Protein backbone atom coordinates (compact mmCIF):
# COMPACT_ATOMS: atom_id res chain seq x y z
CA UNK A 1 0.00 0.00 0.00
CA UNK A 2 1.07 3.54 -0.75
CA UNK A 3 0.31 6.43 1.60
CA UNK A 4 -0.06 9.90 0.16
CA UNK A 5 0.72 12.71 2.61
CA UNK A 6 0.01 16.30 1.54
CA UNK A 7 2.17 18.84 3.39
CA UNK A 8 1.76 22.60 3.41
CA UNK A 9 4.40 25.27 3.92
CA UNK A 10 3.01 27.74 6.44
CA UNK A 11 4.18 30.51 8.72
CA UNK A 12 6.10 28.91 11.61
CA UNK A 13 3.96 28.32 14.67
CA UNK A 14 6.45 30.22 16.84
CA UNK A 15 6.19 33.39 14.77
CA UNK A 16 3.78 36.13 15.78
CA UNK A 17 2.06 37.04 12.49
CA UNK A 18 1.82 40.66 11.45
CA UNK A 19 -1.01 41.96 9.32
CA UNK A 20 -0.06 44.04 6.28
CA UNK A 21 -0.76 47.74 6.65
CA UNK A 22 -3.37 47.70 3.86
CA UNK A 23 -5.29 44.84 5.49
CA UNK A 24 -4.85 42.59 2.43
CA UNK A 25 -3.29 39.71 4.32
CA UNK A 26 -0.51 38.58 6.63
CA UNK A 27 2.99 39.87 5.95
CA UNK A 28 5.11 36.87 4.99
CA UNK A 29 8.25 38.77 3.93
CA UNK A 30 11.26 37.72 6.02
CA UNK A 31 9.18 35.37 8.12
CA UNK A 32 10.23 31.87 9.07
CA UNK A 33 8.15 29.20 7.35
CA UNK A 34 7.78 25.56 8.38
CA UNK A 35 5.70 22.49 7.72
CA UNK A 36 2.13 22.81 9.00
CA UNK A 37 2.24 21.04 12.41
CA UNK A 38 -0.83 18.89 11.66
CA UNK A 39 0.86 17.72 8.45
CA UNK A 40 3.92 16.73 10.47
CA UNK A 41 1.64 14.54 12.56
CA UNK A 42 0.32 13.04 9.31
CA UNK A 43 3.86 12.31 8.06
CA UNK A 44 4.73 10.73 11.41
CA UNK A 45 1.64 8.53 11.38
CA UNK A 46 2.37 7.39 7.82
CA UNK A 47 5.92 6.47 8.83
CA UNK A 48 4.64 4.49 11.82
CA UNK A 49 2.22 2.58 9.58
CA UNK A 50 5.08 1.83 7.20
CA UNK A 51 7.37 0.80 10.07
CA UNK A 52 4.64 -1.59 11.24
CA UNK A 53 4.89 -3.26 7.83
CA UNK A 54 1.45 -2.11 6.67
CA UNK A 55 2.60 0.24 3.91
CA UNK A 56 5.43 0.09 1.37
CA UNK A 57 5.81 3.66 0.22
CA UNK A 58 5.11 7.15 1.50
CA UNK A 59 4.73 9.97 -1.01
CA UNK A 60 4.74 13.53 0.26
CA UNK A 61 3.05 16.12 -1.93
CA UNK A 62 2.98 19.88 -1.58
CA UNK A 63 1.18 22.55 -3.56
CA UNK A 64 2.88 25.90 -3.39
CA UNK A 65 5.93 27.96 -4.38
CA UNK A 66 9.36 26.56 -5.23
CA UNK A 67 10.36 27.09 -1.58
CA UNK A 68 7.87 24.39 -0.60
CA UNK A 69 10.66 22.02 -1.67
CA UNK A 70 12.17 22.64 1.76
CA UNK A 71 8.98 21.42 3.39
CA UNK A 72 9.05 18.32 1.20
CA UNK A 73 12.72 17.71 2.13
CA UNK A 74 11.69 17.85 5.77
CA UNK A 75 9.09 15.16 5.10
CA UNK A 76 11.72 13.11 3.24
CA UNK A 77 14.17 13.51 6.13
CA UNK A 78 11.52 12.30 8.55
CA UNK A 79 11.04 9.17 6.42
CA UNK A 80 8.86 9.77 3.35
CA UNK A 81 10.23 7.95 0.28
CA UNK A 82 9.66 10.47 -2.47
CA UNK A 83 8.01 13.81 -3.06
CA UNK A 84 5.96 15.72 -5.58
CA UNK A 85 5.83 19.50 -5.74
CA UNK A 86 2.90 21.00 -7.62
CA UNK A 87 4.46 24.37 -8.13
CA UNK A 88 2.45 27.56 -8.17
CA UNK A 89 3.01 31.03 -6.76
CA UNK A 90 -0.72 31.72 -6.60
CA UNK A 91 -2.82 31.36 -3.52
CA UNK A 92 -4.61 28.03 -3.84
CA UNK A 93 -7.91 27.60 -2.03
CA UNK A 94 -8.92 24.32 -0.36
CA UNK A 95 -11.20 23.26 -3.22
CA UNK A 96 -8.43 23.64 -5.80
CA UNK A 97 -6.00 21.82 -3.48
CA UNK A 98 -8.51 18.99 -3.14
CA UNK A 99 -8.90 18.80 -6.92
CA UNK A 100 -5.13 18.63 -7.43
CA UNK A 101 -4.79 15.99 -4.72
CA UNK A 102 -7.54 13.96 -6.35
CA UNK A 103 -5.60 14.07 -9.63
CA UNK A 104 -2.37 13.07 -7.86
CA UNK A 105 -4.22 10.21 -6.16
CA UNK A 106 -5.52 9.01 -9.52
CA UNK A 107 -1.94 8.77 -10.77
CA UNK A 108 -0.49 7.26 -7.61
CA UNK A 109 -3.39 5.10 -6.39
CA UNK A 110 -2.61 5.35 -2.66
CA UNK A 111 -4.50 3.13 -0.20
CA UNK A 112 -4.51 5.92 2.35
CA UNK A 113 -4.36 9.69 2.10
CA UNK A 114 -3.30 11.21 5.39
CA UNK A 115 -3.77 14.96 5.77
CA UNK A 116 -3.51 17.45 8.59
CA UNK A 117 -6.99 18.40 9.78
CA UNK A 118 -6.26 22.02 8.96
CA UNK A 119 -3.38 24.35 8.16
CA UNK A 120 -2.45 26.81 10.85
CA UNK A 121 -2.32 29.76 8.44
CA UNK A 122 -5.91 29.95 7.17
CA UNK A 123 -7.46 27.37 9.56
CA UNK A 124 -9.89 26.34 6.82
CA UNK A 125 -10.30 22.70 7.84
CA UNK A 126 -11.80 21.81 4.46
CA UNK A 127 -9.31 20.07 2.20
CA UNK A 128 -9.62 16.53 3.60
CA UNK A 129 -13.41 16.62 3.58
CA UNK A 130 -13.57 18.08 0.05
CA UNK A 131 -11.10 15.49 -1.20
CA UNK A 132 -13.17 12.65 0.23
CA UNK A 133 -16.30 14.05 -1.43
CA UNK A 134 -14.59 14.57 -4.80
CA UNK A 135 -13.14 11.06 -4.75
CA UNK A 136 -16.27 9.44 -3.34
CA UNK A 137 -14.18 7.70 -0.67
CA UNK A 138 -14.76 7.37 3.09
CA UNK A 139 -13.23 9.86 5.50
CA UNK A 140 -12.08 9.70 9.12
CA UNK A 141 -11.44 13.27 10.27
CA UNK A 142 -9.75 14.57 13.47
CA UNK A 143 -7.96 11.26 14.04
CA UNK A 144 -6.82 10.49 17.56
CA UNK A 145 -5.73 6.94 16.73
CA UNK A 146 -5.35 5.17 13.40
CA UNK A 147 -5.23 1.40 13.00
CA UNK A 148 -4.78 -0.16 9.56
CA UNK A 149 -6.02 -3.76 9.39
CA UNK A 150 -6.27 -5.62 6.07
CA UNK A 151 -8.43 -3.60 3.67
CA UNK A 152 -9.78 -1.23 6.29
CA UNK A 153 -8.67 1.48 8.66
CA UNK A 154 -10.18 2.12 12.08
CA UNK A 155 -10.06 5.74 13.18
CA UNK A 156 -10.89 7.08 16.61
CA UNK A 157 -12.13 10.63 16.01
CA UNK A 158 -11.95 13.52 18.42
CA UNK A 159 -15.50 14.84 18.61
CA UNK A 160 -17.22 17.13 21.10
CA UNK A 161 -17.48 15.25 24.35
CA UNK A 162 -15.30 12.26 23.54
CA UNK A 163 -14.04 9.87 20.89
CA UNK A 164 -16.01 8.33 18.06
CA UNK A 165 -14.73 5.18 16.37
CA UNK A 166 -15.28 4.69 12.65
CA UNK A 167 -14.13 1.87 10.39
CA UNK A 168 -13.40 2.84 6.80
CA UNK A 169 -12.84 0.70 3.74
CA UNK A 170 -9.59 1.50 1.96
CA UNK A 171 -8.77 3.57 0.00
CA UNK A 172 -9.71 6.22 2.55
CA UNK A 173 -8.98 9.73 3.65
CA UNK A 174 -7.82 10.43 7.21
CA UNK A 175 -7.18 13.86 8.74
CA UNK A 176 -5.00 14.11 11.83
CA UNK A 177 -5.70 15.83 15.12
CA UNK A 178 -3.13 17.14 17.58
CA UNK A 179 -3.01 14.17 19.93
CA UNK A 180 -2.48 11.45 17.32
CA UNK A 181 1.29 11.27 17.90
CA UNK A 182 4.41 13.28 18.64
CA UNK A 183 6.33 13.75 15.38
CA UNK A 184 9.96 12.70 15.34
CA UNK A 185 12.89 14.97 14.59
CA UNK A 186 15.01 14.01 11.62
CA UNK A 187 18.31 12.27 12.32
CA UNK A 188 21.45 13.57 10.65
CA UNK A 189 21.93 10.51 8.38
CA UNK A 190 18.30 10.84 7.26
CA UNK A 191 18.74 14.57 6.56
CA UNK A 192 21.67 13.60 4.32
CA UNK A 193 19.72 10.80 2.60
CA UNK A 194 16.73 13.10 2.02
CA UNK A 195 18.86 15.26 -0.27
CA UNK A 196 19.15 12.31 -2.65
CA UNK A 197 15.53 11.15 -2.59
CA UNK A 198 13.45 11.87 -5.72
CA UNK A 199 11.43 15.09 -5.84
CA UNK A 200 9.29 15.64 -8.95
CA UNK A 201 7.98 19.04 -9.86
CA UNK A 202 4.68 19.44 -11.70
CA UNK A 203 2.22 22.27 -12.34
CA UNK A 204 -1.51 22.58 -11.61
CA UNK A 205 -2.02 22.71 -15.38
CA UNK A 206 -0.45 19.25 -15.68
CA UNK A 207 -3.41 17.98 -13.65
CA UNK A 208 -5.88 20.15 -15.56
CA UNK A 209 -6.93 22.05 -12.46
CA UNK A 210 -8.00 25.68 -12.57
CA UNK A 211 -6.69 27.26 -9.36
CA UNK A 212 -8.31 30.66 -9.84
CA UNK A 213 -9.72 31.78 -6.48
CA UNK A 214 -13.43 31.51 -5.87
CA UNK A 215 -13.26 33.71 -2.80
CA UNK A 216 -12.22 37.33 -2.32
CA UNK A 217 -10.50 38.40 0.87
CA UNK A 218 -12.00 41.74 1.78
CA UNK A 219 -10.05 42.55 4.91
CA UNK A 220 -7.56 41.03 7.36
CA UNK A 221 -7.14 42.63 10.76
CA UNK A 222 -5.37 41.98 14.05
CA UNK A 223 -7.55 40.63 16.84
CA UNK A 224 -8.58 43.43 19.21
CA UNK A 225 -6.17 43.99 22.08
CA UNK A 226 -7.62 42.52 25.26
CA UNK A 227 -8.51 45.21 27.75
CA UNK A 228 -7.06 44.99 31.24
CA UNK A 229 -9.40 43.73 33.97
CA UNK A 230 -10.25 45.41 37.21
CA UNK A 231 -9.17 44.20 40.66
CA UNK A 232 -11.69 44.23 43.49
CA UNK A 233 -10.94 44.08 47.20
CA UNK A 234 -13.22 41.25 48.35
CA UNK A 235 -16.19 39.04 47.49
CA UNK A 236 -18.73 41.67 48.47
CA UNK A 237 -17.14 44.16 46.11
CA UNK A 238 -17.12 41.49 43.40
CA UNK A 239 -20.83 40.77 43.85
CA UNK A 240 -21.64 44.46 43.85
CA UNK A 241 -19.60 44.92 40.67
CA UNK A 242 -21.32 42.03 38.91
CA UNK A 243 -24.72 43.44 39.86
CA UNK A 244 -23.73 46.90 38.73
CA UNK A 245 -22.61 45.52 35.36
CA UNK A 246 -25.85 43.57 35.09
CA UNK A 247 -24.01 40.29 34.31
CA UNK A 248 -25.99 38.26 36.85
Amino acid sequence: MKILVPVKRVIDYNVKPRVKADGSGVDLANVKMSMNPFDEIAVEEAIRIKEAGKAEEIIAVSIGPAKAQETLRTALAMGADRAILVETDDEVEPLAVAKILKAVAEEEQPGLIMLGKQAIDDDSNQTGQMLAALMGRPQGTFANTVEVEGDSVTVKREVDGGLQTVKLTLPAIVTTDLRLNEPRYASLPNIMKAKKKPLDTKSPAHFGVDTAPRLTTTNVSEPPVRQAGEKVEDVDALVAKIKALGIA
Partner: protein
Amino acid sequence: MGDGILNETFPEIREAVRRLCARFPGEYWRKLDRERAYPSEFVAALTEAGFLSVLIPEEYGGSGLGLEAACAVLEEIHRSGSNGGACHAQMYTMGTLLKHGSEEQKRHYLPKIASGELRLQAFGVTEPGAGTDTTRISTFARREGDDYVVNGQKIWISRAEHSDLMVLLCRTTPREECAKPSDGMSVLLVDMREAVGNGLTIRPVRTMLNHATTELFFDDLRVPASALIGEEGKGFRYILSGMNAERILIASECIGDGRFFIDRAAAYAKDRSVFGRAIGENQGVQFPIARAYVQLSAAAEMVTKAARMFDAGETAGTEANMAKMLASEASWAAADMCIQTHGGFGFAEEYDIERKFRETRLYQVAPISTNLILSHVATHVLDLPKSF
Protein backbone atom coordinates in the same frame (compact mmCIF):
# COMPACT_ATOMS: atom_id res chain seq x y z
CA MET B 1 13.40 39.02 12.43
CA GLY B 2 16.96 39.99 13.14
CA ASP B 3 18.03 36.68 14.62
CA GLY B 4 19.53 35.27 11.47
CA ILE B 5 17.12 32.33 11.29
CA LEU B 6 16.17 33.16 7.71
CA ASN B 7 19.62 32.98 6.16
CA GLU B 8 21.19 30.54 8.56
CA THR B 9 23.56 27.86 7.33
CA PHE B 10 22.54 24.19 7.50
CA PRO B 11 18.85 25.03 8.15
CA GLU B 12 17.67 21.40 8.18
CA ILE B 13 20.34 20.36 10.64
CA ARG B 14 19.63 23.31 12.91
CA GLU B 15 15.89 22.68 12.81
CA ALA B 16 16.35 19.00 13.72
CA VAL B 17 18.68 19.92 16.60
CA ARG B 18 16.19 22.51 17.85
CA ARG B 19 13.44 19.89 17.79
CA LEU B 20 15.61 17.44 19.67
CA CYS B 21 16.58 20.00 22.31
CA ALA B 22 12.94 21.02 22.78
CA ARG B 23 12.50 17.65 24.46
CA PHE B 24 15.10 18.63 27.06
CA PRO B 25 13.70 21.80 28.60
CA GLY B 26 15.16 23.98 31.35
CA GLU B 27 13.69 21.76 34.05
CA TYR B 28 15.78 18.82 32.82
CA TRP B 29 19.01 20.83 32.98
CA ARG B 30 18.20 22.44 36.33
CA LYS B 31 17.74 19.05 37.95
CA LEU B 32 21.06 17.80 36.58
CA ASP B 33 22.75 21.01 37.66
CA ARG B 34 21.49 20.63 41.24
CA GLU B 35 22.68 17.04 41.37
CA ARG B 36 25.84 17.59 39.34
CA ALA B 37 24.59 14.68 37.25
CA TYR B 38 25.47 13.64 33.70
CA PRO B 39 22.84 14.25 30.96
CA SER B 40 22.76 10.63 29.81
CA GLU B 41 19.35 10.81 28.08
CA PHE B 42 20.31 13.96 26.19
CA VAL B 43 23.61 12.46 25.05
CA ALA B 44 21.82 9.25 24.03
CA ALA B 45 19.31 11.24 21.95
CA LEU B 46 22.08 13.20 20.19
CA THR B 47 24.02 10.00 19.56
CA GLU B 48 21.03 8.12 18.15
CA ALA B 49 20.15 11.01 15.86
CA GLY B 50 23.71 10.97 14.53
CA PHE B 51 24.68 14.47 15.62
CA LEU B 52 27.85 13.44 17.40
CA SER B 53 29.28 11.58 14.40
CA VAL B 54 29.04 14.59 12.07
CA LEU B 55 32.80 14.70 11.48
CA ILE B 56 33.48 10.98 11.06
CA PRO B 57 33.84 10.09 7.36
CA GLU B 58 30.98 8.12 5.80
CA GLU B 59 33.21 5.09 5.20
CA TYR B 60 33.60 4.76 8.98
CA GLY B 61 29.91 5.21 9.71
CA GLY B 62 29.63 8.98 10.23
CA SER B 63 28.13 11.73 8.12
CA GLY B 64 31.42 13.02 6.75
CA LEU B 65 30.51 16.65 7.14
CA GLY B 66 32.90 19.45 8.05
CA LEU B 67 33.54 21.49 11.12
CA GLU B 68 31.10 24.18 9.99
CA ALA B 69 28.23 21.68 10.20
CA ALA B 70 29.43 20.52 13.61
CA CYS B 71 29.49 24.16 14.70
CA ALA B 72 25.84 24.53 13.61
CA VAL B 73 24.90 21.55 15.78
CA LEU B 74 26.65 22.88 18.88
CA GLU B 75 25.42 26.42 18.37
CA GLU B 76 21.80 25.27 18.26
CA ILE B 77 22.26 23.05 21.32
CA HIS B 78 23.52 26.03 23.28
CA ARG B 79 21.01 28.48 21.86
CA SER B 80 18.19 26.21 23.02
CA GLY B 81 19.39 26.40 26.64
CA SER B 82 20.98 22.96 26.58
CA ASN B 83 24.71 22.38 26.98
CA GLY B 84 26.95 20.38 24.68
CA GLY B 85 29.81 20.18 27.15
CA ALA B 86 28.84 16.68 28.20
CA CYS B 87 29.42 15.28 24.74
CA HIS B 88 31.00 17.75 22.31
CA ALA B 89 34.33 15.96 22.62
CA GLN B 90 32.76 12.82 21.13
CA MET B 91 32.69 14.87 17.92
CA TYR B 92 36.32 15.87 17.68
CA THR B 93 38.54 13.75 19.96
CA MET B 94 38.52 11.08 17.27
CA GLY B 95 40.29 13.55 14.97
CA THR B 96 43.67 12.49 16.33
CA LEU B 97 42.83 8.86 15.57
CA LEU B 98 41.41 9.74 12.16
CA LYS B 99 44.40 11.81 11.08
CA HIS B 100 47.25 9.86 12.63
CA GLY B 101 45.96 6.38 13.52
CA SER B 102 46.72 3.26 11.46
CA GLU B 103 44.10 1.95 9.06
CA GLU B 104 43.63 -1.01 11.41
CA GLN B 105 43.01 1.26 14.40
CA LYS B 106 40.56 3.36 12.38
CA ARG B 107 38.63 0.33 11.14
CA HIS B 108 38.53 -1.05 14.65
CA TYR B 109 37.40 2.04 16.51
CA LEU B 110 35.77 4.65 14.27
CA PRO B 111 32.57 2.78 13.33
CA LYS B 112 31.91 2.06 17.00
CA ILE B 113 32.63 5.67 17.90
CA ALA B 114 30.24 6.77 15.15
CA SER B 115 27.44 4.56 16.46
CA GLY B 116 28.08 5.64 20.03
CA GLU B 117 28.90 2.09 21.13
CA LEU B 118 32.31 3.44 22.13
CA ARG B 119 32.59 6.84 23.74
CA LEU B 120 35.85 8.61 22.96
CA GLN B 121 35.40 11.92 24.70
CA ALA B 122 38.30 12.21 27.13
CA PHE B 123 41.45 14.02 26.15
CA GLY B 124 44.28 13.74 28.69
CA VAL B 125 46.80 16.54 28.33
CA THR B 126 46.79 19.05 31.23
CA GLU B 127 48.74 18.25 34.40
CA PRO B 128 48.95 19.96 37.79
CA GLY B 129 52.55 20.93 36.99
CA ALA B 130 51.99 21.80 33.33
CA GLY B 131 49.05 23.79 32.09
CA THR B 132 49.24 25.26 28.61
CA ASP B 133 53.02 24.76 28.84
CA THR B 134 52.39 21.31 27.44
CA THR B 135 56.00 20.34 26.82
CA ARG B 136 56.54 20.21 30.59
CA ILE B 137 54.12 17.35 31.15
CA SER B 138 55.67 14.64 33.26
CA THR B 139 53.26 11.72 32.92
CA PHE B 140 55.59 9.10 31.51
CA ALA B 141 54.99 5.95 29.46
CA ARG B 142 57.90 3.53 29.77
CA ARG B 143 58.12 0.78 27.20
CA GLU B 144 58.25 -2.71 28.75
CA GLY B 145 58.02 -5.57 26.24
CA ASP B 146 54.67 -5.31 24.44
CA ASP B 147 53.34 -2.74 26.89
CA TYR B 148 53.77 0.83 27.98
CA VAL B 149 53.78 1.37 31.73
CA VAL B 150 52.25 4.76 32.55
CA ASN B 151 52.87 6.80 35.69
CA GLY B 152 51.80 10.35 36.46
CA GLN B 153 48.82 12.61 36.97
CA LYS B 154 46.40 14.65 34.87
CA ILE B 155 43.88 17.32 35.83
CA TRP B 156 40.78 18.95 34.32
CA ILE B 157 40.06 15.86 32.29
CA SER B 158 36.40 16.27 31.39
CA ARG B 159 34.04 13.32 30.99
CA ALA B 160 36.67 10.71 32.00
CA GLU B 161 33.99 8.84 33.93
CA HIS B 162 31.76 8.84 30.86
CA SER B 163 34.27 7.75 28.28
CA ASP B 164 35.32 4.30 27.12
CA LEU B 165 38.50 5.52 25.46
CA MET B 166 40.87 8.37 26.16
CA VAL B 167 43.46 10.07 23.99
CA LEU B 168 46.37 10.41 26.40
CA LEU B 169 49.45 12.54 25.83
CA CYS B 170 52.51 11.44 27.78
CA ARG B 171 56.26 11.65 27.62
CA THR B 172 58.09 8.67 26.21
CA THR B 173 61.46 10.47 26.28
CA PRO B 174 62.42 12.90 29.08
CA ARG B 175 62.34 16.54 27.99
CA GLU B 176 66.06 17.04 28.76
CA GLU B 177 67.02 14.26 26.36
CA CYS B 178 65.10 15.67 23.40
CA ALA B 179 66.48 17.93 20.68
CA LYS B 180 63.35 20.09 20.97
CA PRO B 181 61.05 20.34 24.00
CA SER B 182 58.09 19.37 21.81
CA ASP B 183 59.74 16.07 20.84
CA GLY B 184 59.53 12.93 22.93
CA MET B 185 55.80 12.98 23.60
CA SER B 186 53.45 10.25 22.39
CA VAL B 187 49.73 9.63 22.09
CA LEU B 188 48.17 6.50 23.54
CA LEU B 189 44.56 5.46 23.04
CA VAL B 190 43.76 4.18 26.51
CA ASP B 191 40.87 1.77 27.06
CA MET B 192 39.31 3.24 30.19
CA ARG B 193 37.16 0.19 30.81
CA GLU B 194 40.27 -1.91 31.39
CA ALA B 195 42.37 0.82 32.97
CA VAL B 196 40.14 1.97 35.84
CA GLY B 197 41.09 0.02 38.93
CA ASN B 198 44.18 -1.41 37.22
CA GLY B 199 46.51 1.53 37.61
CA LEU B 200 44.12 4.36 36.71
CA THR B 201 42.13 6.17 39.39
CA ILE B 202 39.56 8.84 38.45
CA ARG B 203 38.61 11.46 41.02
CA PRO B 204 35.77 13.89 40.16
CA VAL B 205 36.42 17.60 40.76
CA ARG B 206 33.33 19.53 41.87
CA THR B 207 33.15 22.92 40.15
CA MET B 208 30.81 25.89 39.89
CA LEU B 209 29.13 24.33 36.87
CA ASN B 210 27.99 20.83 36.00
CA HIS B 211 30.84 19.77 33.76
CA ALA B 212 31.90 16.25 34.85
CA THR B 213 35.55 17.14 35.12
CA THR B 214 38.07 14.95 36.94
CA GLU B 215 41.67 14.38 37.91
CA LEU B 216 43.44 11.18 36.94
CA PHE B 217 46.16 9.23 38.73
CA PHE B 218 48.31 6.73 36.82
CA ASP B 219 50.12 4.19 38.93
CA ASP B 220 51.91 1.58 36.79
CA LEU B 221 49.02 1.47 34.32
CA ARG B 222 49.86 -1.07 31.59
CA VAL B 223 48.72 -0.05 28.10
CA PRO B 224 49.40 -2.36 25.15
CA ALA B 225 51.95 -0.94 22.68
CA SER B 226 49.32 -1.38 19.94
CA ALA B 227 47.48 1.56 21.54
CA LEU B 228 50.19 3.94 20.31
CA ILE B 229 48.81 6.37 17.71
CA GLY B 230 51.25 7.24 14.92
CA GLU B 231 54.94 7.28 15.74
CA GLU B 232 56.46 7.39 19.17
CA GLY B 233 57.77 10.86 20.06
CA LYS B 234 55.58 12.78 17.62
CA GLY B 235 52.48 13.03 19.82
CA PHE B 236 52.63 16.76 20.42
CA ARG B 237 52.16 17.54 16.74
CA TYR B 238 49.27 15.07 16.52
CA ILE B 239 47.21 16.79 19.16
CA LEU B 240 47.71 20.33 17.86
CA SER B 241 45.25 20.16 14.97
CA GLY B 242 42.70 18.57 17.28
CA MET B 243 43.08 21.55 19.57
CA ASN B 244 42.25 23.95 16.74
CA ALA B 245 39.07 22.02 15.97
CA GLU B 246 38.17 22.07 19.65
CA ARG B 247 38.61 25.84 19.88
CA ILE B 248 36.42 26.50 16.86
CA LEU B 249 33.69 24.18 18.11
CA ILE B 250 33.74 25.71 21.56
CA ALA B 251 33.57 29.15 19.99
CA SER B 252 30.36 28.02 18.28
CA GLU B 253 28.97 26.99 21.67
CA CYS B 254 29.69 30.52 22.89
CA ILE B 255 27.80 31.91 19.90
CA GLY B 256 24.87 29.65 20.83
CA ASP B 257 25.04 30.81 24.46
CA GLY B 258 25.14 34.43 23.32
CA ARG B 259 22.07 33.93 21.13
CA PHE B 260 20.29 32.29 24.08
CA PHE B 261 20.98 35.34 26.26
CA ILE B 262 19.96 37.80 23.55
CA ASP B 263 16.77 35.86 22.70
CA ARG B 264 15.81 35.75 26.37
CA ALA B 265 16.69 39.36 27.11
CA ALA B 266 14.83 40.70 24.06
CA ALA B 267 11.74 38.64 24.85
CA TYR B 268 11.77 39.72 28.50
CA ALA B 269 12.31 43.39 27.68
CA LYS B 270 9.26 43.33 25.40
CA ASP B 271 7.12 41.52 27.93
CA ARG B 272 8.07 42.89 31.34
CA SER B 273 6.07 45.93 32.25
CA VAL B 274 7.19 48.40 34.91
CA PHE B 275 5.73 51.88 35.47
CA GLY B 276 3.00 51.01 33.03
CA ARG B 277 5.12 50.16 30.00
CA ALA B 278 7.50 47.52 28.68
CA ILE B 279 11.01 47.95 30.07
CA GLY B 280 12.30 47.45 26.51
CA GLU B 281 10.83 50.82 25.57
CA ASN B 282 13.68 52.37 27.53
CA GLN B 283 16.84 52.78 25.50
CA GLY B 284 18.78 52.17 28.69
CA VAL B 285 17.44 48.63 28.50
CA GLN B 286 17.38 48.08 24.74
CA PHE B 287 20.83 49.45 23.86
CA PRO B 288 22.75 46.89 25.92
CA ILE B 289 20.78 44.13 24.18
CA ALA B 290 21.55 45.67 20.79
CA ARG B 291 25.22 46.06 21.72
CA ALA B 292 25.44 42.41 22.77
CA TYR B 293 23.92 41.44 19.43
CA VAL B 294 26.40 43.54 17.47
CA GLN B 295 29.34 42.10 19.40
CA LEU B 296 28.08 38.54 19.01
CA SER B 297 27.41 38.94 15.29
CA ALA B 298 31.01 40.02 14.72
CA ALA B 299 32.32 37.08 16.74
CA ALA B 300 30.07 34.69 14.80
CA GLU B 301 31.64 35.88 11.53
CA MET B 302 35.08 35.02 12.88
CA VAL B 303 33.93 31.58 13.99
CA THR B 304 32.50 30.88 10.55
CA LYS B 305 35.73 32.06 8.92
CA ALA B 306 37.84 29.81 11.14
CA ALA B 307 35.56 26.81 10.53
CA ARG B 308 35.63 27.32 6.76
CA MET B 309 39.42 27.63 6.75
CA PHE B 310 39.73 24.45 8.82
CA ASP B 311 37.37 22.65 6.43
CA ALA B 312 39.45 23.86 3.50
CA GLY B 313 42.44 22.06 5.01
CA GLU B 314 44.24 25.11 6.37
CA THR B 315 45.77 25.08 9.85
CA ALA B 316 43.61 27.97 11.01
CA GLY B 317 45.45 28.09 14.33
CA THR B 318 45.40 31.85 14.66
CA GLU B 319 41.80 32.13 13.42
CA ALA B 320 40.67 29.37 15.79
CA ASN B 321 42.24 31.22 18.68
CA MET B 322 40.82 34.58 17.68
CA ALA B 323 37.36 33.09 17.12
CA LYS B 324 37.41 31.45 20.55
CA MET B 325 38.48 34.66 22.26
CA LEU B 326 35.92 36.87 20.52
CA ALA B 327 33.09 34.39 20.96
CA SER B 328 33.80 33.72 24.63
CA GLU B 329 33.95 37.44 25.36
CA ALA B 330 30.78 38.12 23.37
CA SER B 331 28.85 35.36 25.16
CA TRP B 332 30.04 36.63 28.53
CA ALA B 333 29.00 40.19 27.69
CA ALA B 334 25.60 38.87 26.57
CA ALA B 335 25.29 36.86 29.79
CA ASP B 336 26.01 39.90 31.92
CA MET B 337 23.55 41.98 29.89
CA CYS B 338 20.89 39.28 30.21
CA ILE B 339 21.15 39.15 34.01
CA GLN B 340 20.95 42.94 34.13
CA THR B 341 17.91 43.01 31.85
CA HIS B 342 16.13 40.49 34.06
CA GLY B 343 17.00 42.19 37.33
CA GLY B 344 16.27 39.93 40.30
CA PHE B 345 14.64 37.30 38.07
CA GLY B 346 17.99 36.73 36.38
CA PHE B 347 19.17 35.14 39.60
CA ALA B 348 16.17 32.83 39.95
CA GLU B 349 17.05 29.28 38.96
CA GLU B 350 13.80 28.75 37.07
CA TYR B 351 14.80 31.34 34.46
CA ASP B 352 17.90 29.27 33.49
CA ILE B 353 19.89 32.44 33.05
CA GLU B 354 22.06 32.11 36.15
CA ARG B 355 22.92 28.53 35.07
CA LYS B 356 23.89 29.60 31.56
CA PHE B 357 25.77 32.56 33.06
CA ARG B 358 27.94 30.18 35.10
CA GLU B 359 28.35 27.83 32.15
CA THR B 360 29.46 30.41 29.62
CA ARG B 361 32.07 31.89 31.98
CA LEU B 362 34.15 28.76 31.50
CA TYR B 363 35.04 29.53 27.93
CA GLN B 364 37.34 32.44 28.63
CA VAL B 365 39.44 29.93 30.58
CA ALA B 366 38.98 26.64 28.77
CA PRO B 367 40.12 25.07 26.57
CA ILE B 368 42.68 27.87 26.50
CA SER B 369 42.72 31.12 28.42
CA THR B 370 42.45 34.53 26.82
CA ASN B 371 45.94 35.61 27.85
CA LEU B 372 47.51 32.72 25.96
CA ILE B 373 45.53 33.62 22.85
CA LEU B 374 46.77 37.20 23.09
CA SER B 375 50.28 35.88 23.58
CA HIS B 376 49.94 33.74 20.46
CA VAL B 377 48.70 36.69 18.40
CA ALA B 378 51.40 38.99 19.77
CA THR B 379 54.34 36.71 19.16
CA HIS B 380 53.23 34.59 16.19
CA VAL B 381 51.23 37.11 14.18
CA LEU B 382 52.71 40.46 15.17
CA ASP B 383 56.24 39.14 15.70
CA LEU B 384 56.57 40.83 19.10
CA PRO B 385 59.27 39.50 21.42
CA LYS B 386 58.47 36.27 23.23
CA SER B 387 57.70 36.74 26.91
CA PHE B 388 58.27 33.10 27.90
